[in-house]
């Protein structure tokens, strides 16, 4: 791994989950920036550079699927992981545009593995 920390943009409206993910992913050596809604995520994307995006789907205002559509028009090179409490959104074909779909779980192992896999490929 090179010295420069990989940057992750986390889009999640649950404040407690943001805090948990920030701490856990920092422990893995990533730099995490959180956005509580899609609008502020898009602002951060325009002004900053990120190596990976993790997004929830159900959020107040614009939902995760709309966010992915917007990101597709903006940047196509950043891998996206959907992290939702719902299994069923997999049926929405727009979620296929994401690189991975991880259902929320109290063990963050699967999410961490997917991040690693996508950043190393």
């Amino acid at each position: 791994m090179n010295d420069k920390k990989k940057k992750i943009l986390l889009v999640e409206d649950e404040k407690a989950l943001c805090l948990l993910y920030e701490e856990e992913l920092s422990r893995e050596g990533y730099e995490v920036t959180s956005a509580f809604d899609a609008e502020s995520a898009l602002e951060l994307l325009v002004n900053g550079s990120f190596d990976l995006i993790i997004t929830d789907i159900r959020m107040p205002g614009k939902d995760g699927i709309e966010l992915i559509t917007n990101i597709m028009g903006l940047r196509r090179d950043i891998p996206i992981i959907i992290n939702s409490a719902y299994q069923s959104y997999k049926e929405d074909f727009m979620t296929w545009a994401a690189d991975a779909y991880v259902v929320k779980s109290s063990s963050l192992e699967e999410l961490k593995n997917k991040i690693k896999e996508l950043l190393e490929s």
Partner: protein
Amino acid sequence: MIEPFAFLSARFEKDVPRELSVLSIISQSFFKPFSVEDNLLVILTALTSGSGVGFNRAMLFIRDGDRLKGEMWLGPRSANEAADIWEVLSTPGIGYVEIIEHNRLLVMNNENTLTHRIKNLTFGLNQEKASIPSLAAMRKEILLVRDAANEPAVDPRFREIIGSDEFLCIPLVSSEEVMGEIIVDNAITRRSINLTDVRLAGLCGLLAGNYILTSRLYQRLLDAQKMAAMGEIAMFVSHQLRNPIVAMGGFIEQLLRPDLPEEKKLRNLYIIKDEISRLEKIIFEMGHFLKISLKEPVWFKPWDMIDSILNSPDISTKAESHVLDVKIDRHEIEIFCDPSSFGEALRNIIDNALEATPPGGCVYLRGYPKNKDWFTVSIRDTGRGISNPDKAQLLRPFFTTKEKGLGLGLAFVKRVMDSCGGKIDFRSRLGKGTIFHLTFPCRQVKGAEEKT
């Protein structure tokens, strides 16, 4: 000039052709909120009323799988009783509701009624040597029996029960299958059954068959809707529960690490405590919404309830930072609703209005009679307003615009209003605010007219 006519007459029409009279009687059953049993009774009434087809007696079998089961038998047991019944039915001004009420007593299942004699009677529909009435149902044909004593297809057991030699079997045919059968006779007057009788009875059979089919399909639709709603609820609940559980699990995971600094241990415990309260709140609200079976509406004066909601700690605390402007016309009236549901509904709407309005803003509550039959409570806020796409979904369960709402408040209000025959409507403009109108049935308090 425009002349209006009512679709249905509430009275038996005596001076119209029999065909029209039968249609008129049966049509009532599709409009009146009777039960399926009552509506079938209406059809038997059409078959036996003098102004209808005019048979003496009519028995009804309902199909249950591969057999016909005796359900009810309408008619007099003797000539004397026949005279009594016909006297009742020819009372001037008697309407459908009274006649159905009268006939309901006649077909009740107790030892003295005709119904009791056929209640345990069944006929198989897949026998090789089928007897009447199975034969009519299996062949989907109206069968007229002229001489039951000498007819081999007539089961001796059935002949003993019906006790007459001439009767007509009408299978209740629907577009899908045979739904049952009606058997009519003229055991009292001994009048011979003619071709017009057969035609009219056939018409009743078709209507009854399709009515039974429609009511069964409707029941299936209701069941399917219930299942779909349950699925939606299950999905929503699993999502609502998952977020706090994931957070708790993650922070507990951290607590189990030996190197976690002391201050973080305490912080994690507080986060877990908060998430537990959130779970409790979700479970409480879900249970509250799903379980409460609304109580029957009653007539009551709503003033005390309105005052107690406005003075309740949760509303008055929230209202401290707002201007809450209340004007209620306290007339001598009563509204029709379950008082505690009324209070809950009002609390929900006021709560939403206060939450939507920024501190310092105004919330207006008005109560006024719309006319002599309706009383309206209006709540207007000066908050953010509701967008057009949200308006369409606003009253649906689980729809919310709040960050941590379950979306059950307005769905509950809608349920309350439906249960008392009232109305909920709203108007809203983005950035300007929203006004909700809850309109309840109302009436003058007895004795108040004399006083005023």
